[in-house]
């Protein structure tokens, strides 16, 4: 009994189903119709030394982008259609709200007043806002127009 109680117990594990939601984007073509990219590369600037590639895949019709949760009021990301080729720089700015989840998960972030801006066109021409609030991953926040 003495030896049993002296053993430490493992702490709770955060299962992550209720953590910070990701930004959801869909694509449109020049005619404003939903569009599937044959290949797509997405890189995100998380404020580290190097930008992080989060997506490179074929036949992409939607993407989820985890936004920054640090002090930065915006997240920059880059869209390419080819491994080597022009890339668009897009900035999404927002107001952050910290929400307590549980002892194991700590806090998560919800985003309000999302604003999208294309800082560098080609291949993305413009960004259309659909839902300015990001509290779950169910609704589409932006459309990227190619």
């Amino acid at each position, binding site marked *: 009994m*003495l030896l049993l109680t002296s053993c430490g117990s493992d702490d*709770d594990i955060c299962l992550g189903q209720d*953590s910070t939601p990701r930004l959801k984007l869909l694509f449109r073509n020049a005619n404003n119709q939903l569009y599937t990219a044959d290949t797509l590369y997405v890189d995100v600037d998380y404020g580290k030394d190097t930008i992080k590639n989060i997506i490179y895949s074929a036949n992409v019709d939607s993407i989820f982008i985890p936004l920054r949760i*640090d002090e930065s009021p915006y997240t920059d990301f880059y869209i390419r259609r080819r491994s080597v080729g022009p890339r668009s720089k897009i900035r999404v700015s927002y107001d952050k709200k910290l929400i307590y989840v549980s002892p194991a998960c*700590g806090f998560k972030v919800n985003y309000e007043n999302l604003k999208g801006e294309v800082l560098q066109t080609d291949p993305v021409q413009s960004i259309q806002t659909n839902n300015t609030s990001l509290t779950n991953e169910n609704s589409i926040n932006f459309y990227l127009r190619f």
Partner: protein
Amino acid sequence: MRTVSIFICAFSLLSVSLFSQSKKVEKKQDSIKWKYTPNFTVGVDVLNIGTGFFGDRQLIQGFISSRINKKVHAIIDIGYDNNIYQKNGYDAKADGLFAKIGGFYMLSTDPENDLNGFYAGGKLAGSFYNQEYMAIPVKGINSEGVFVSFDPSTQSSYWIEAMLGARVQVFNSNFFIDVNVQPRYLAYTTKQDEIKPMIVPGFGKSSGSFNMGFSWNIAYKF
């Protein structure tokens, strides 16, 4: 953590050797009728005071118990606990006083000395403490090392606990060794900004509502 475990192991071996020396002394006890006269047993948890020298947690606790009738004892515990929590991105500390009140029932007693034996009981407990969360993790994909901190605050927590243990007289003296375990359930806690406390003085780790306490007391009967 390892030094604490070694200490507890050494302590339990020491206690076994101590127990084996104690010989039951023949002692004629009173008859069926038992009348309450003021009596008090005061105990100090020496195991947890000892482990405080090796670990991050300083737990000082003691009790006063009084025999109410032949088999029932009332008991009050008081203590002070100072603890830290540094794990999974958390950095927190808490310290404060706690008190418990309850009773226990002698389940089986030594026929020659009805103060010796096994007992079971229950207590209500409360803790009033200061806490400070220097860091609580913020979780998001591809972002590590983001934390929020909070100002120190005063909180309170309340729990119920069961106790199972044994009390043995040391030789023929007024000293007793009292060992017990306390499975406990956190019933209510005040919260700072809805944050569930990770440690509660007197209760221990509180991320889950259940916890187990252990104490090894040396007690003196007045």
